[in-house]
Protein backbone atom coordinates (compact mmCIF):
# COMPACT_ATOMS: atom_id res chain seq x y z
CA UNK A 1 0.00 0.00 0.00
CA UNK A 2 1.46 3.37 -0.96
CA UNK A 3 1.98 6.10 1.63
CA UNK A 4 -0.85 8.61 1.77
CA UNK A 5 -3.43 6.12 0.57
CA UNK A 6 -6.42 6.00 2.92
CA UNK A 7 -6.60 3.15 5.43
CA UNK A 8 -10.33 3.01 4.84
CA UNK A 9 -11.90 4.23 1.62
CA UNK A 10 -15.67 4.20 1.15
CA UNK A 11 -17.73 5.51 -1.76
CA UNK A 12 -21.50 5.27 -1.97
CA UNK A 13 -21.28 2.56 0.71
CA UNK A 14 -24.69 0.98 1.23
CA UNK A 15 -26.16 -1.66 3.54
CA UNK A 16 -29.72 -2.91 3.24
CA UNK A 17 -31.53 -5.48 5.36
CA UNK A 18 -34.53 -6.37 3.22
CA UNK A 19 -36.46 -3.11 2.84
CA UNK A 20 -34.56 -1.34 5.58
CA UNK A 21 -31.71 0.88 4.38
CA UNK A 22 -29.28 0.91 7.31
CA UNK A 23 -26.46 2.73 5.50
CA UNK A 24 -27.52 4.91 2.60
CA UNK A 25 -24.67 5.61 0.20
CA UNK A 26 -22.01 7.21 2.40
CA UNK A 27 -18.52 8.47 1.38
CA UNK A 28 -15.59 8.78 3.76
CA UNK A 29 -11.84 8.19 4.04
CA UNK A 30 -9.81 7.43 7.14
CA UNK A 31 -6.09 8.24 7.08
CA UNK A 32 -3.35 6.39 8.90
CA UNK A 33 -2.77 7.58 12.48
CA UNK A 34 -6.12 9.32 12.68
CA UNK A 35 -8.81 8.93 15.35
CA UNK A 36 -12.01 8.94 13.36
CA UNK A 37 -15.50 8.92 14.83
CA UNK A 38 -18.98 7.98 13.70
CA UNK A 39 -21.40 9.95 15.79
CA UNK A 40 -25.14 9.57 15.82
CA UNK A 41 -28.17 8.24 17.65
CA UNK A 42 -29.12 4.56 17.82
CA UNK A 43 -30.18 3.27 14.42
CA UNK A 44 -28.16 5.88 12.49
CA UNK A 45 -26.17 3.14 10.71
CA UNK A 46 -22.94 3.42 12.71
CA UNK A 47 -22.70 -0.21 13.76
CA UNK A 48 -23.64 -1.48 10.32
CA UNK A 49 -20.83 0.64 8.88
CA UNK A 50 -18.39 -0.71 11.46
CA UNK A 51 -19.39 -4.30 10.75
CA UNK A 52 -18.79 -3.77 7.03
CA UNK A 53 -15.35 -2.30 7.75
CA UNK A 54 -14.68 -5.24 10.07
CA UNK A 55 -15.43 -7.64 7.18
CA UNK A 56 -18.17 -9.48 9.08
CA UNK A 57 -21.05 -7.94 7.13
CA UNK A 58 -21.03 -8.02 3.31
CA UNK A 59 -21.68 -4.65 1.68
CA UNK A 60 -24.90 -4.27 -0.33
CA UNK A 61 -23.61 -1.59 -2.67
CA UNK A 62 -20.85 0.91 -3.39
CA UNK A 63 -17.12 0.55 -2.86
CA UNK A 64 -15.21 -0.27 0.32
CA UNK A 65 -11.47 -0.72 0.67
CA UNK A 66 -9.87 -1.49 4.03
CA UNK A 67 -6.05 -1.38 4.27
CA UNK A 68 -6.16 -1.13 0.47
CA UNK A 69 -7.91 -4.51 0.21
CA UNK A 70 -11.41 -5.64 -0.74
CA UNK A 71 -13.40 -7.06 2.21
CA UNK A 72 -15.40 -9.32 -0.11
CA UNK A 73 -12.26 -11.04 -1.36
CA UNK A 74 -9.61 -10.53 1.31
CA UNK A 75 -11.71 -10.71 4.49
CA UNK A 76 -9.45 -13.05 6.47
CA UNK A 77 -6.32 -11.12 5.50
CA UNK A 78 -7.87 -7.78 6.50
CA UNK A 79 -9.28 -9.11 9.76
CA UNK A 80 -5.82 -10.37 10.66
CA UNK A 81 -4.66 -6.74 10.80
CA UNK A 82 -7.67 -5.27 12.62
CA UNK A 83 -8.41 -4.94 16.32
CA UNK A 84 -12.13 -5.12 16.96
CA UNK A 85 -14.00 -4.03 20.07
CA UNK A 86 -17.59 -5.04 19.33
CA UNK A 87 -20.63 -3.32 20.81
CA UNK A 88 -21.65 -6.49 22.69
CA UNK A 89 -18.91 -8.34 24.54
CA UNK A 90 -17.83 -11.64 23.03
CA UNK A 91 -15.78 -12.82 26.00
CA UNK A 92 -16.23 -16.37 27.29
CA UNK A 93 -17.42 -15.75 30.84
CA UNK A 94 -16.50 -19.24 32.03
CA UNK A 95 -12.86 -19.00 30.98
CA UNK A 96 -10.33 -16.93 32.89
CA UNK A 97 -9.27 -13.42 31.94
CA UNK A 98 -5.93 -14.69 30.68
CA UNK A 99 -7.43 -17.65 28.82
CA UNK A 100 -9.69 -15.29 26.89
CA UNK A 101 -6.59 -13.51 25.61
CA UNK A 102 -4.69 -16.71 24.84
CA UNK A 103 -7.55 -18.22 22.89
CA UNK A 104 -8.06 -15.05 20.88
CA UNK A 105 -4.34 -14.83 20.11
CA UNK A 106 -4.49 -18.37 18.75
CA UNK A 107 -7.25 -17.36 16.32
CA UNK A 108 -4.62 -15.13 14.72
CA UNK A 109 -2.14 -17.99 14.53
CA UNK A 110 0.13 -16.47 17.19
CA UNK A 111 2.34 -19.13 18.81
CA UNK A 112 1.48 -20.25 22.34
CA UNK A 113 4.70 -18.88 23.76
CA UNK A 114 4.26 -15.49 22.08
CA UNK A 115 0.58 -15.44 23.11
CA UNK A 116 1.57 -15.81 26.78
CA UNK A 117 4.05 -12.95 26.52
CA UNK A 118 1.53 -10.69 24.83
CA UNK A 119 -1.29 -11.64 27.20
CA UNK A 120 0.75 -10.65 30.25
CA UNK A 121 1.87 -7.40 28.65
CA UNK A 122 -1.67 -6.46 27.62
CA UNK A 123 -3.16 -7.31 31.00
CA UNK A 124 -0.63 -4.93 32.46
CA UNK A 125 -1.63 -2.29 29.92
CA UNK A 126 -5.30 -2.45 30.91
CA UNK A 127 -4.49 -2.94 34.62
CA UNK A 128 -6.03 -6.37 34.92
CA UNK A 129 -2.90 -8.37 35.82
CA UNK A 130 -4.25 -9.12 39.27
CA UNK A 131 -7.41 -10.65 37.83
CA UNK A 132 -5.56 -12.78 35.25
CA UNK A 133 -6.54 -16.10 36.86
CA UNK A 134 -10.14 -15.16 37.70
CA UNK A 135 -13.02 -16.16 35.48
CA UNK A 136 -14.54 -13.31 33.47
CA UNK A 137 -18.07 -13.73 34.85
CA UNK A 138 -17.76 -11.64 38.06
CA UNK A 139 -15.81 -8.76 36.47
CA UNK A 140 -17.47 -5.34 36.34
CA UNK A 141 -18.65 -3.91 33.02
CA UNK A 142 -15.66 -1.58 32.90
CA UNK A 143 -13.19 -4.41 33.49
CA UNK A 144 -14.80 -6.53 30.78
CA UNK A 145 -14.54 -3.61 28.40
CA UNK A 146 -10.87 -3.16 29.24
CA UNK A 147 -10.32 -6.87 28.72
CA UNK A 148 -12.03 -6.66 25.33
CA UNK A 149 -9.71 -3.77 24.42
CA UNK A 150 -6.68 -5.77 25.56
CA UNK A 151 -7.89 -8.70 23.49
CA UNK A 152 -8.34 -6.57 20.40
CA UNK A 153 -4.66 -5.55 20.66
CA UNK A 154 -3.29 -9.06 20.78
CA UNK A 155 -2.43 -9.13 17.06
CA UNK A 156 -0.77 -5.69 17.14
CA UNK A 157 -3.45 -4.20 14.86
CA UNK A 158 -2.85 -1.35 12.42
CA UNK A 159 -6.44 -0.28 12.70
CA UNK A 160 -8.76 -0.49 15.68
CA UNK A 161 -12.53 -0.56 15.34
CA UNK A 162 -14.34 0.37 18.54
CA UNK A 163 -18.12 0.14 18.48
CA UNK A 164 -19.48 2.20 21.38
CA UNK A 165 -16.47 1.45 23.59
CA UNK A 166 -17.88 3.04 26.75
CA UNK A 167 -21.64 2.62 26.47
CA UNK A 168 -23.09 1.43 29.75
CA UNK A 169 -20.01 2.25 31.83
CA UNK A 170 -19.93 4.51 34.87
CA UNK A 171 -17.90 7.75 34.63
CA UNK A 172 -14.75 6.38 36.28
CA UNK A 173 -14.73 3.32 34.04
CA UNK A 174 -15.25 5.52 30.97
CA UNK A 175 -12.27 7.65 31.90
CA UNK A 176 -10.16 4.54 32.43
CA UNK A 177 -11.06 3.33 28.93
CA UNK A 178 -10.43 6.76 27.37
CA UNK A 179 -7.05 6.95 29.02
CA UNK A 180 -6.01 3.63 27.40
CA UNK A 181 -7.32 4.77 24.02
CA UNK A 182 -5.37 8.04 24.29
CA UNK A 183 -2.20 6.07 24.85
CA UNK A 184 -2.86 3.93 21.79
CA UNK A 185 -3.54 7.01 19.73
CA UNK A 186 -0.22 8.48 20.87
CA UNK A 187 1.49 5.27 19.77
CA UNK A 188 0.16 5.91 16.28
CA UNK A 189 -2.62 3.31 16.16
CA UNK A 190 -5.46 4.37 13.87
CA UNK A 191 -8.73 4.42 15.80
CA UNK A 192 -12.19 4.29 14.30
CA UNK A 193 -14.97 4.50 16.84
CA UNK A 194 -18.69 4.95 17.07
CA UNK A 195 -20.36 6.70 19.93
CA UNK A 196 -23.48 8.52 20.88
CA UNK A 197 -21.62 10.43 23.56
CA UNK A 198 -20.58 13.90 22.48
CA UNK A 199 -17.94 14.23 25.16
CA UNK A 200 -16.38 10.97 24.00
CA UNK A 201 -16.20 12.20 20.42
CA UNK A 202 -14.71 15.53 21.51
CA UNK A 203 -12.16 13.80 23.73
CA UNK A 204 -10.97 11.17 21.30
CA UNK A 205 -11.66 12.10 17.69
CA UNK A 206 -9.45 14.13 15.37
CA UNK A 207 -12.18 14.02 12.80
CA UNK A 208 -15.71 12.74 12.76
CA UNK A 209 -18.84 12.34 10.73
CA UNK A 210 -22.30 12.84 12.13
CA UNK A 211 -24.67 10.16 10.89
CA UNK A 212 -28.42 10.33 10.87
CA UNK A 213 -30.82 7.83 9.28
CA UNK A 214 -28.09 6.07 7.31
CA UNK A 215 -26.57 9.21 5.83
CA UNK A 216 -23.63 11.43 6.72
CA UNK A 217 -25.00 14.81 7.80
CA UNK A 218 -21.69 16.63 8.44
CA UNK A 219 -17.98 15.97 8.53
CA UNK A 220 -15.03 17.72 10.18
CA UNK A 221 -12.97 18.03 13.35
CA UNK A 222 -15.00 18.59 16.53
CA UNK A 223 -13.81 22.19 16.70
CA UNK A 224 -14.51 22.89 13.03
CA UNK A 225 -18.01 21.49 13.33
CA UNK A 226 -18.74 23.59 16.37
CA UNK A 227 -17.37 26.73 14.72
CA UNK A 228 -19.17 26.11 11.48
CA UNK A 229 -22.48 24.95 12.80
CA UNK A 230 -22.87 26.53 16.19
CA UNK A 231 -21.94 29.72 18.04
CA UNK A 232 -19.12 30.08 20.53
CA UNK A 233 -21.35 29.98 23.58
CA UNK A 234 -24.78 28.89 24.67
CA UNK A 235 -27.04 30.35 27.33
CA UNK A 236 -29.31 27.74 28.87
CA UNK A 237 -32.45 29.03 30.53
CA UNK A 238 -34.75 26.99 32.75
CA UNK A 239 -38.22 28.04 33.79
CA UNK A 240 -40.52 27.34 36.72
CA UNK A 241 -43.38 26.50 34.34
CA UNK A 242 -43.60 25.93 30.59
CA UNK A 243 -40.77 27.07 28.32
CA UNK A 244 -41.99 30.37 26.77
CA UNK A 245 -42.23 30.91 23.03
CA UNK A 246 -39.87 33.66 21.92
CA UNK A 247 -38.27 35.01 18.71
CA UNK A 248 -34.51 35.67 18.34
CA UNK A 249 -35.37 39.27 17.36
CA UNK A 250 -36.15 40.01 21.03
CA UNK A 251 -32.38 40.01 21.67
CA UNK A 252 -31.42 42.67 19.08
CA UNK A 253 -29.13 40.43 17.00
CA UNK A 254 -27.25 39.08 20.04
CA UNK A 255 -28.79 35.63 19.51
CA UNK A 256 -27.97 33.76 16.28
CA UNK A 257 -30.48 31.00 16.87
CA UNK A 258 -32.60 29.55 19.63
CA UNK A 259 -33.73 26.07 20.42
CA UNK A 260 -36.70 25.25 22.65
CA UNK A 261 -36.37 21.87 24.39
CA UNK A 262 -39.09 20.42 26.62
CA UNK A 263 -37.25 21.47 29.80
CA UNK A 264 -35.13 24.43 28.73
CA UNK A 265 -34.45 27.16 26.20
CA UNK A 266 -31.05 27.36 24.47
CA UNK A 267 -29.82 30.74 23.18
CA UNK A 268 -26.89 30.48 20.72
CA UNK A 269 -24.63 33.51 20.98
CA UNK A 270 -20.99 34.55 20.67
CA UNK A 271 -20.98 36.34 24.03
CA UNK A 272 -23.01 34.60 26.69
CA UNK A 273 -22.22 36.91 29.60
CA UNK A 274 -23.33 39.93 27.67
CA UNK A 275 -26.65 38.29 26.93
CA UNK A 276 -27.52 37.24 30.49
CA UNK A 277 -28.97 40.59 31.76
CA UNK A 278 -31.21 40.94 28.72
CA UNK A 279 -32.37 37.30 29.05
CA UNK A 280 -33.26 37.84 32.70
CA UNK A 281 -35.20 40.97 31.91
CA UNK A 282 -37.10 39.55 28.94
CA UNK A 283 -37.89 36.02 30.06
CA UNK A 284 -37.60 35.78 33.89
CA UNK A 285 -36.02 32.30 33.91
CA UNK A 286 -35.56 30.37 37.18
CA UNK A 287 -31.93 29.59 36.33
CA UNK A 288 -29.31 30.68 33.80
CA UNK A 289 -26.19 28.80 32.67
CA UNK A 290 -23.56 30.07 30.24
CA UNK A 291 -21.46 27.33 28.61
CA UNK A 292 -19.36 26.69 25.54
CA UNK A 293 -20.96 25.16 22.47
CA UNK A 294 -20.49 21.40 22.16
CA UNK A 295 -21.05 18.78 19.50
CA UNK A 296 -24.42 18.15 21.12
CA UNK A 297 -25.46 21.61 19.91
CA UNK A 298 -24.20 20.82 16.43
CA UNK A 299 -26.19 17.63 16.43
CA UNK A 300 -29.29 19.38 17.69
CA UNK A 301 -29.02 21.88 14.90
CA UNK A 302 -28.51 19.23 12.22
CA UNK A 303 -31.23 16.84 13.28
CA UNK A 304 -33.51 18.81 15.60
CA UNK A 305 -33.07 16.05 18.18
CA UNK A 306 -30.86 15.38 21.17
CA UNK A 307 -28.52 12.42 20.86
CA UNK A 308 -29.24 10.30 23.88
CA UNK A 309 -32.96 9.98 24.27
Amino acid at each position, binding site marked *: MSAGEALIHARDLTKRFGDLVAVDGIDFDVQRGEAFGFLGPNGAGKSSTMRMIGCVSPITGGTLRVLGLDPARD*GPQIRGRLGVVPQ*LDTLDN*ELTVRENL*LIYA*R*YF*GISRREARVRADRLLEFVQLSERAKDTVEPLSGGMKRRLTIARSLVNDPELMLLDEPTTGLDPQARHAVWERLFRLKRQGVTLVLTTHYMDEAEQLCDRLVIMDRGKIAEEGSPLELIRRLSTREVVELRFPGDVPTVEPAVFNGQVARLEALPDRLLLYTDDGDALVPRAHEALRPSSVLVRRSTLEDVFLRLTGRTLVD
Partner: protein
Amino acid sequence: MDYPLRAYEYWLRSYRRTWRGSVISSLVNPVLYLTALGVGLGSVMKHRGNALGVPYVDYVAPGMLAATCMQIASFESAYPVMAAIRWTRQFHAMLSTPLSIRDVIAGHQLYVASRIAFVSAVYLAIIAGFGAVHSPEALVAWPVAIVLGLSFSAPVSAMAAWLRRDEGFNALFRFGITPMFLFSGTFFPVTQLPHGFREIAYATPLWHAVDLMRHLTLGTASLWPAIGHVAYLAAWAVAGLALARRTYTNRLVT
Protein backbone atom coordinates in the same frame (compact mmCIF):
# COMPACT_ATOMS: atom_id res chain seq x y z
CA MET B 1 -4.80 -25.02 6.46
CA ASP B 2 -4.50 -24.74 10.21
CA TYR B 3 -7.41 -22.30 10.59
CA PRO B 4 -9.95 -24.94 11.74
CA LEU B 5 -7.41 -26.09 14.33
CA ARG B 6 -7.40 -22.60 15.84
CA ALA B 7 -11.15 -22.81 16.39
CA TYR B 8 -10.72 -26.40 17.62
CA GLU B 9 -8.38 -25.17 20.32
CA TYR B 10 -11.12 -23.02 21.79
CA TRP B 11 -13.32 -26.08 22.28
CA LEU B 12 -10.52 -28.05 23.87
CA ARG B 13 -9.78 -25.25 26.30
CA SER B 14 -13.43 -24.91 27.10
CA TYR B 15 -13.65 -28.69 27.65
CA ARG B 16 -10.78 -28.54 30.13
CA ARG B 17 -13.19 -27.03 32.66
CA THR B 18 -15.34 -30.16 32.75
CA TRP B 19 -13.09 -32.92 31.49
CA ARG B 20 -12.82 -34.84 34.75
CA GLY B 21 -16.53 -35.45 35.15
CA SER B 22 -16.86 -36.15 31.47
CA VAL B 23 -14.05 -38.72 31.38
CA ILE B 24 -15.38 -40.45 34.51
CA SER B 25 -18.86 -40.79 33.03
CA SER B 26 -17.46 -42.20 29.80
CA LEU B 27 -15.79 -44.91 31.90
CA VAL B 28 -18.54 -45.54 34.42
CA ASN B 29 -21.63 -45.37 32.20
CA PRO B 30 -20.67 -48.27 29.90
CA VAL B 31 -19.87 -50.46 32.88
CA LEU B 32 -23.19 -49.64 34.57
CA TYR B 33 -25.28 -50.10 31.42
CA LEU B 34 -23.60 -53.30 30.31
CA THR B 35 -23.89 -54.74 33.82
CA ALA B 36 -27.56 -53.88 34.19
CA LEU B 37 -28.75 -54.61 30.66
CA GLY B 38 -26.25 -57.13 29.50
CA VAL B 39 -25.54 -59.18 32.57
CA GLY B 40 -28.69 -58.49 34.62
CA LEU B 41 -31.37 -58.53 31.93
CA GLY B 42 -29.30 -61.03 29.93
CA SER B 43 -29.38 -63.64 32.70
CA VAL B 44 -33.18 -63.39 32.91
CA MET B 45 -33.39 -63.84 29.14
CA LYS B 46 -31.13 -66.86 29.24
CA HIS B 47 -33.57 -68.67 31.52
CA ARG B 48 -36.53 -67.72 29.33
CA GLY B 49 -34.90 -68.75 26.08
CA ASN B 50 -32.93 -66.19 24.08
CA ALA B 51 -33.88 -66.02 20.39
CA LEU B 52 -31.01 -63.68 19.46
CA GLY B 53 -28.43 -66.42 18.95
CA VAL B 54 -25.82 -64.67 21.14
CA PRO B 55 -25.78 -63.71 24.83
CA TYR B 56 -27.76 -60.52 25.36
CA VAL B 57 -24.74 -58.55 26.56
CA ASP B 58 -22.99 -59.33 23.26
CA TYR B 59 -26.09 -58.18 21.40
CA VAL B 60 -26.81 -54.98 23.30
CA ALA B 61 -23.22 -53.74 23.79
CA PRO B 62 -22.58 -52.47 20.22
CA GLY B 63 -26.09 -50.97 20.22
CA MET B 64 -25.33 -49.05 23.40
CA LEU B 65 -22.01 -47.92 21.95
CA ALA B 66 -23.72 -46.47 18.88
CA ALA B 67 -26.53 -44.89 20.91
CA THR B 68 -24.03 -43.27 23.28
CA CYS B 69 -22.09 -41.76 20.37
CA MET B 70 -25.34 -40.39 18.96
CA GLN B 71 -26.29 -38.78 22.27
CA ILE B 72 -22.93 -37.19 22.92
CA ALA B 73 -22.58 -35.91 19.36
CA SER B 74 -26.08 -34.42 19.44
CA PHE B 75 -25.69 -32.85 22.83
CA GLU B 76 -22.27 -31.34 22.03
CA SER B 77 -23.75 -29.76 18.90
CA ALA B 78 -26.93 -28.41 20.44
CA TYR B 79 -26.44 -26.14 23.45
CA PRO B 80 -22.71 -25.40 22.96
CA VAL B 81 -23.34 -24.16 19.41
CA MET B 82 -26.26 -22.03 20.47
CA ALA B 83 -24.12 -20.66 23.30
CA ALA B 84 -21.29 -19.79 20.95
CA ILE B 85 -23.77 -17.86 18.79
CA ARG B 86 -26.01 -16.27 21.42
CA TRP B 87 -24.61 -16.46 24.93
CA THR B 88 -20.80 -16.49 24.98
CA ARG B 89 -20.90 -15.15 21.39
CA GLN B 90 -17.57 -16.87 20.82
CA PHE B 91 -18.35 -17.52 17.14
CA HIS B 92 -18.68 -13.75 16.69
CA ALA B 93 -15.28 -13.36 18.32
CA MET B 94 -13.78 -15.96 15.95
CA LEU B 95 -15.28 -14.24 12.92
CA SER B 96 -13.65 -10.92 13.81
CA THR B 97 -10.28 -12.68 13.36
CA PRO B 98 -8.91 -14.34 10.21
CA LEU B 99 -11.27 -17.31 10.77
CA SER B 100 -14.23 -17.77 8.41
CA ILE B 101 -17.52 -19.64 8.70
CA ARG B 102 -16.09 -22.89 7.39
CA ASP B 103 -13.23 -22.75 9.92
CA VAL B 104 -15.72 -22.13 12.72
CA ILE B 105 -17.81 -25.13 11.65
CA ALA B 106 -14.83 -27.40 10.98
CA GLY B 107 -13.20 -26.57 14.33
CA HIS B 108 -16.34 -27.52 16.21
CA GLN B 109 -16.96 -30.72 14.22
CA LEU B 110 -13.36 -31.70 14.84
CA TYR B 111 -13.93 -31.27 18.54
CA VAL B 112 -17.07 -33.43 18.50
CA ALA B 113 -15.18 -36.04 16.47
CA SER B 114 -12.42 -36.04 19.11
CA ARG B 115 -14.92 -36.51 21.91
CA ILE B 116 -16.50 -39.43 20.06
CA ALA B 117 -13.10 -40.92 19.25
CA PHE B 118 -12.24 -40.99 22.94
CA VAL B 119 -15.59 -42.17 24.24
CA SER B 120 -15.96 -44.93 21.63
CA ALA B 121 -12.41 -46.22 22.17
CA VAL B 122 -13.08 -46.53 25.90
CA TYR B 123 -16.46 -48.10 25.23
CA LEU B 124 -15.01 -50.68 22.84
CA ALA B 125 -12.35 -51.62 25.37
CA ILE B 126 -15.02 -52.10 28.04
CA ILE B 127 -17.14 -54.20 25.66
CA ALA B 128 -14.09 -56.37 25.08
CA GLY B 129 -13.69 -56.59 28.86
CA PHE B 130 -17.23 -57.98 29.08
CA GLY B 131 -16.20 -60.64 26.60
CA ALA B 132 -18.66 -59.35 24.05
CA VAL B 133 -16.19 -58.87 21.18
CA HIS B 134 -16.05 -61.89 18.86
CA SER B 135 -13.66 -60.65 16.18
CA PRO B 136 -10.79 -58.22 15.56
CA GLU B 137 -13.12 -56.59 13.00
CA ALA B 138 -14.50 -54.81 16.05
CA LEU B 139 -11.62 -52.32 15.61
CA VAL B 140 -13.38 -51.06 12.48
CA ALA B 141 -16.29 -50.02 14.72
CA TRP B 142 -14.06 -47.23 16.03
CA PRO B 143 -13.89 -45.13 12.81
CA VAL B 144 -17.53 -46.03 12.16
CA ALA B 145 -18.38 -44.46 15.53
CA ILE B 146 -16.71 -41.23 14.42
CA VAL B 147 -18.66 -41.13 11.15
CA LEU B 148 -21.82 -41.84 13.15
CA GLY B 149 -20.95 -38.93 15.45
CA LEU B 150 -20.60 -36.57 12.48
CA SER B 151 -23.87 -37.80 10.97
CA PHE B 152 -25.54 -36.34 14.06
CA SER B 153 -23.28 -33.44 15.01
CA ALA B 154 -23.42 -31.82 11.55
CA PRO B 155 -27.23 -31.63 11.17
CA VAL B 156 -27.79 -30.86 14.87
CA SER B 157 -25.31 -27.97 14.77
CA ALA B 158 -27.05 -26.69 11.62
CA MET B 159 -30.28 -26.78 13.59
CA ALA B 160 -28.69 -25.06 16.60
CA ALA B 161 -27.64 -22.13 14.40
CA TRP B 162 -31.08 -21.95 12.85
CA LEU B 163 -33.14 -22.09 16.08
CA ARG B 164 -34.08 -18.84 17.76
CA ARG B 165 -34.63 -20.35 21.21
CA ASP B 166 -33.25 -23.38 22.98
CA GLU B 167 -36.77 -24.81 23.52
CA GLY B 168 -36.40 -26.27 20.03
CA PHE B 169 -33.85 -28.74 21.42
CA ASN B 170 -36.53 -30.26 23.65
CA ALA B 171 -38.41 -31.28 20.53
CA LEU B 172 -35.24 -32.66 18.96
CA PHE B 173 -34.44 -34.85 21.94
CA ARG B 174 -38.05 -35.80 22.71
CA PHE B 175 -39.16 -36.68 19.19
CA GLY B 176 -35.81 -37.49 17.56
CA ILE B 177 -32.98 -38.67 19.74
CA THR B 178 -34.87 -40.55 22.47
CA PRO B 179 -37.17 -42.56 20.13
CA MET B 180 -34.12 -43.43 18.01
CA PHE B 181 -32.29 -44.55 21.14
CA LEU B 182 -35.18 -46.87 22.06
CA PHE B 183 -36.37 -48.18 18.70
CA SER B 184 -33.47 -48.22 16.22
CA GLY B 185 -32.24 -51.69 17.05
CA THR B 186 -30.26 -50.75 20.12
CA PHE B 187 -32.07 -53.14 22.51
CA PHE B 188 -34.03 -55.48 20.22
CA PRO B 189 -34.18 -56.27 16.49
CA VAL B 190 -36.04 -53.73 14.38
CA THR B 191 -37.92 -56.66 12.81
CA GLN B 192 -39.95 -56.79 16.04
CA LEU B 193 -41.52 -53.43 15.11
CA PRO B 194 -44.82 -53.33 13.21
CA HIS B 195 -44.71 -52.33 9.55
CA GLY B 196 -44.50 -48.58 9.09
CA PHE B 197 -42.42 -48.12 12.22
CA ARG B 198 -39.92 -50.64 10.97
CA GLU B 199 -39.33 -48.63 7.78
CA ILE B 200 -38.86 -45.47 9.82
CA ALA B 201 -36.27 -47.26 11.94
CA TYR B 202 -34.41 -48.34 8.80
CA ALA B 203 -34.25 -44.72 7.66
CA THR B 204 -32.57 -43.48 10.86
CA PRO B 205 -28.80 -43.09 10.80
CA LEU B 206 -28.64 -44.76 14.20
CA TRP B 207 -30.03 -48.05 12.88
CA HIS B 208 -27.34 -48.18 10.16
CA ALA B 209 -24.64 -47.59 12.75
CA VAL B 210 -26.08 -50.14 15.22
CA ASP B 211 -26.45 -52.80 12.55
CA LEU B 212 -22.92 -52.30 11.24
CA MET B 213 -21.26 -52.10 14.65
CA ARG B 214 -23.10 -55.21 15.83
CA HIS B 215 -21.91 -57.18 12.81
CA LEU B 216 -18.39 -55.90 13.41
CA THR B 217 -18.18 -56.85 17.10
CA LEU B 218 -19.87 -60.20 16.45
CA GLY B 219 -17.59 -60.84 13.47
CA THR B 220 -20.43 -61.29 11.00
CA ALA B 221 -19.92 -58.19 8.84
CA SER B 222 -19.74 -58.39 5.07
CA LEU B 223 -18.18 -55.77 2.83
CA TRP B 224 -20.95 -54.32 0.67
CA PRO B 225 -23.60 -53.86 3.35
CA ALA B 226 -20.88 -52.27 5.50
CA ILE B 227 -19.99 -49.81 2.75
CA GLY B 228 -23.68 -49.05 2.29
CA HIS B 229 -24.10 -48.26 5.98
CA VAL B 230 -21.05 -46.00 6.10
CA ALA B 231 -22.12 -44.21 2.92
CA TYR B 232 -25.56 -43.57 4.42
CA LEU B 233 -24.03 -42.11 7.59
CA ALA B 234 -21.58 -40.02 5.55
CA ALA B 235 -24.46 -38.67 3.46
CA TRP B 236 -26.13 -37.36 6.64
CA ALA B 237 -22.84 -35.78 7.71
CA VAL B 238 -22.25 -34.11 4.33
CA ALA B 239 -25.83 -32.86 4.02
CA GLY B 240 -25.61 -31.60 7.62
CA LEU B 241 -22.40 -29.69 6.88
CA ALA B 242 -23.91 -28.05 3.79
CA LEU B 243 -26.94 -27.05 5.82
CA ALA B 244 -24.75 -25.80 8.68
CA ARG B 245 -22.82 -23.62 6.28
CA ARG B 246 -26.10 -21.92 5.34
CA THR B 247 -27.58 -21.57 8.81
CA TYR B 248 -24.30 -20.36 10.36
CA THR B 249 -23.88 -17.80 7.59
CA ASN B 250 -27.45 -16.54 7.95
CA ARG B 251 -27.01 -16.16 11.68
CA LEU B 252 -23.48 -14.78 11.88
CA VAL B 253 -22.59 -12.92 8.68
CA THR B 254 -25.34 -10.34 8.25
